[in-house]
């Protein structure tokens, strides 16, 4: 079985995987990082969104072997645990604005939300909704998710570490 090496949440990891092992399986089953969720089998729902080399991807349509030498961030690694109450501003915003109910889509929403903020700065609600086309939620009706992402983006814009890329 081929070996794969990558950095996940700032830690170097490696494992023996099959060619067909998906990134989401590698994260959940090999690394026991179960914050990334599986909500469908057709790449519709977005519960599996992680950051791969700084960009949001659905981990269910990426092969583990494709990530050789790459940097992966999952929800577990999003927050800089040294400060901010242990929460990333996007996570804090989801709590403040009640942007989650059952929580199953939430890791994907937060990862997507941070990606939206990094790419677009502080987009308006209509743009946020467009950008969320790949993330489904059945509990919230999206109302508070949109508000949370807007607030999280504003908080990130204030933080030099999280400013959007040019």
């Amino acid at each position, binding site marked *: 079985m081929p070996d794969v090496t990558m950095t996940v949440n700032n830690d170097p990891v490696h494992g023996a995987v099959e060619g067909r092992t998906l990134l989401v399986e590698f994260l959940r089953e090999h690394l026991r990082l179960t914050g990334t969720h599986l*909500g469908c089998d057709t790449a519709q*729902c977005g519960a599996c969104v992680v950051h791969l080399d700084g960009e949001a991807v659905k981990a269910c349509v990426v092969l583990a072997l494709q990530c050789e030498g790459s940097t992966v961030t999952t929800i577990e690694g999003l927050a800089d645990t040294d400060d901010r109450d242990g929460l990333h501003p996007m996570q804090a915003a989801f709590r403040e604005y009640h942007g989650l*109910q*059952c929580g199953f889509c939430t890791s994907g929403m937060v990862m997507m939300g941070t990606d939206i903020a990094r790419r677009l700065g502080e987009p308006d609600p209509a743009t946020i909704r*467009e950008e969320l086309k790949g993330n*489904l939620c059945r*509990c*919230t009706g*999206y109302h508070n998710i*949109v508000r949370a992402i807007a607030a999280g983006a504003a908080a990130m814009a204030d933080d030099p570490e999280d400013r959007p890329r040019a």
Partner: protein
Amino acid sequence: MREDAPVLHAGAPGNLAFRVRHTGGDAERAIARAEVVVRRRITNNRVAPVPMEGRAVLSEFDTASGRLLHHSSSQLPHVHVRSLAACLGFPLHKLRLVAPDIGGGFGAKLGFYAEDVLCALLAIRTGRPCACIEGRSEGFCSTTHGRDHVQYAELAARRDGTVTGLRVRLVADLGAYALGMGPGVPAVNAGLSVTGPYRIANVEAVVEGVHTNRTPTGPYRGAGHPEATFLIERMMDELARALRLDPVEVRRRNLVPASAMPHRLPTGLTLDSGDYAANLDAALALADYPGMRRHQAEARRDGRYLGIGVTIFSENSGAAPSMAMGAIGFRRAGHESARVVVHPDGRATVFSGGQSQGQGHATSLAQIAADGLGITPEDVEVVQGDTQAVPFGTGTYNSRTIAVGGSAVHTAARRIFVKVRRIAAYKLRRRVADLDYSAGVFRVRSATGTGSAAVSAVTHLVKRIEDRVKGVVFTRISGVSGLVSERGAGSVTFAEAAREAHLGHDVPLGMTPGLDETVFFDPKDMPFAYGTHISLVEVDPETGHVGLLRHVVVDDCGRIINPLLADGQVHGGAAQGIGQALLEEVTYGSAGEPLVDSLHSYAVPHATDLPDFETGHTTTPTALNPLGAKGVGEGATIGAAPAVVSAVLDALDPLGVTDIAMPLTPMRVWSAVDRASRREEPMERSTTDA
């Protein structure tokens, strides 16, 4: 149901599983004598609950102890543990069911499924843990679906729009098996709810449950109320259309007035409380309904098709008196349990028989307990979903956990507070009436009048003398000297009193140590939550696309415990109602094969399909429980679908469209416009007798 159709179950000839009839007054006579009768055939589409997390089971058997630890994504841990024990012949005192964080339920996880039994059986037989995690396509086939009615409705009225009678026949597709509460959804919930918030004296509702070779239907958010509400709201719109009256006015004329509450419906349920008219007015004001109509008229001059739909729903929530549950055949109790324990540091744990799948009970029940105990919510932990930690419970459905479970928490918390206060008074050598309590501290109240001050001082002196006497007697009997009683300088904290309760060193004579109360709240009846939905849409006749411009909700769930959580339920509920109205349908091919097996073929709403929701609340408490609370979890699903459909039909009225069956997909909307433009017969005929 055709005579030549294959029969699926020997006990159900013609594939008819049941026929029930609910009547009140004389609907036949009312229809025969009516000035106006409106008749319609209405469909309510089969949908799937689609919680973002599918069903999951993990069963572990310990051969040494003979104990089975069964993890299951269940909305009803205590019901399902009984079902599991019965299916396996397994003793309940060795069986523990744990329902961990559940990623959404909406009724899909109320059923008891074969996978639970199979995993448990394999775990027992092999001694190895056995898990079954449902894939999405598996879920579309094997997890219960919702709704799926064909309905025939006749509404009788006077020319001024007052309704005199309603006769309906609901044909409900149960699917291949009568599973759990599935048949009760149309038979009981829908059948008894067809009059909605309206005063209709003559009612007949015949409900037929039919077997087909499809996935069984079960409770899905609203469970029968959406089907009934969609019917009566469509009929009210049709009545308004036939009489050329304003649809809001027709509704207003028929609402049960607040002065008539409590109001017994002709088919048996009792509306406990409610001011429907005030709620309607609040919604019309929040929406600026006249402004919407002006906007619509301006848009029509510009060749754009805007439409407005107004819906009022009323639903019985907070199931239910246990006696009633038993009588109907839901053999699963109607009470809800709460055990509240206060620890020696004054913090508390609530063990609730409810089961959150995202409703936030960890917050709302903590608030209720904290309020009852006089402590802060941060100092309360809520435990659910473990039959070992919570030995009794009924579960979460029909928007019952605050009204029923919360009432149990409240009562238990109050009992503990009364005990803690007695201990505090005892420690201070004061009467309970002499104490004030705030911010975690019991303080001796400063005297108000000389009379009460004197009584208080004398009582205090007497108690101190008692102290001395007790000390002397104790020393004499035991040979140990010094019963030292600690007395604060006029105050003692909740935590100190709680600690004392655990220690029992210095408590009133005869008081049992501990702070541990279990309460079962068994409701006397079911409170009716209600609300108004107003939908503003724009329809593009060339593409059939329906844009939701605004969606306004004013909900009344009685006393609101947590506004954020309540609004969250309204948002999410409305989204599911809108999904059924515009996007969602589980379809089958001509050979009965399922055509929906993934989110590719089933259109759960995306963020771009939904507007921001505008929400308001009216608050009419119920007398049926100590909180005054009604359910909030399902109302918005019930009210949203008919409002949106009504709005689309309002938009397309100038183009001659009179009806479109849900879901109002672009194809269906476009086809309806196309047919009307070629002046073809509409697919469903409506007849009005003048």
